[in-house]
């Protein structure tokens, strides 16, 4: 019996008078990868923002290791790595400066592992180039390098593979699998066909009252 990390109970969210999801319940166990599916506008990003604690526009309960997430906010933030729609990369800073800032923000990250992480995402040699001179994909990679630095058990990734080339995607999928095998868990959205050889659970928002208004 593996440990239940995140429990979502009867989650309800409405946006502009449109119900995005209603009665959404699921649990995320250690070692699981969950892919949120749904068409554009079905509320994937909204769900991830709610789960990460950025958005409070919801009804229902979210439990982290059995405790309401509001009460264990600090511990939850320690255990969370969130990769959002915007990469969170400062254009005028270099990749290394960007990652150093993340290291300062989360005390668990060891700053001496930053060069190694940059090498892993294929940015060796670009350490001192300002990010505005890098391509869109390389900018995403700077932010994805956080996956190699982090020790957080829960990864919430919103479209992590956008603008990443095929080899990069394969490497990241491998990384997700390794993370799950180490006992971490991942919630992600992506329009890619996941090539992960392993159990990937899918939650489809379209079936969950996502389109209720015109049904």
């Amino acid at each position, binding site marked *: 019996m593996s440990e239940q990390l995140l429990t979502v109970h009867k989650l309800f969210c409405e946006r502009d008078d449109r119900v995005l999801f209603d009665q959404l319940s699921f649990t995320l166990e250690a070692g699981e990868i969950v892919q949120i599916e749904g068409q554009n506008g079905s509320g994937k990003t909204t769900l991830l923002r709610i789960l990460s604690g*950025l958005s409070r*526009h919801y009804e229902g309960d979210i439990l982290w290791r059995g405790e309401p997430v509001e009460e264990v906010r600090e511990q939850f933030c320690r255990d969370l790595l*969130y990769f959002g729609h915007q990469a*969170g*990369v400062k254009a005028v*800073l270099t990749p290394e400066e960007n990652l*150093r800032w993340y290291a*300062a*923000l989360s005390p668990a990250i060891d700053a001496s592992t930053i060069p190694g992480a940059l090498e892993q995402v294929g940015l060796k040699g670009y350490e001192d180039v300002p990010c505005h001179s890098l391509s869109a994909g390389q900018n995403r990679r700077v932010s994805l390098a956080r996956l190699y630095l982090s020790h957080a058990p829960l990864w919430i990734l919103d479209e992590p593979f956008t603008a990443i080339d095929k080899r990069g995607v394969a490497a990241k999928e491998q990384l997700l699998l390794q993370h799950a095998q180490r006992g971490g868990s991942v919630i992600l959205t992506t329009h890619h066909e996941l090539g992960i050889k392993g159990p990937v659970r899918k939650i489809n928002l379209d079936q969950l009252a996502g389109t209720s208004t015109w049904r």
Partner: protein
Amino acid sequence: MEMKTNSGQQGIGCLFVATCRRECLLSFRRKSDLVNPLIFFLMVATLFPLGVSPDPGFLAQLAPGVVWVAALLATLLSMDALFRSDYEDGSLEQLLLSPQPLFIVVLAKVVTHWMMTGLALTLMAPLLGMMLFLPAEGVPGLMLSLLLGTPTLSLVGAIGAALTVGLKKGGVLISLLVLPLYIPVLIFGSSAVQAAVTGLPLGGYLALLGALLALALVLAPLAISAALRISISS
């Protein structure tokens, strides 16, 4: 236990320093944000001799108020950029999800912002005073009052910036939200300069400015953090 609190304090100190360093790097690499408020400050003050009267006696009377209003508007102008780029590139989300206390990061951001605007304005103020024929006795009062007053302007302005960061066009709204709150600082600031010019003691005015600053320093970061959470949540 003692070890633990020590390392905690060290962590917070490191975070403060890391944030300041990052903000400094950002402003030095985007020089326009650094220079624009200063040029604005200079130009507003230049408009008065041109628009009202070039008479030295008249300008000397006007000078304390004009320099203070110009500094206030220049600070206000620079406020909108404080959180906007962080909001647009997603850094702000990461900031809010960090396990580190938001209070410290926000305070570090505002302090660095003040060093780039308020402190620079304070250092430039004697030049403007000279342009407006402010008597030499008034200059220390002008600098001291700006030194104590502009951090309050930055802290209060940051609340407005945090509240409006989620909006497409927050610039005008910040002015409407924040300008009324700037009035006490303006009154005590320009009164301090006037007192200095006439040779009256300015201790009282400076003490009031200091009290406002102490209050803003303690409460504003809390308000800014809460406002950022609201802005990001919607």
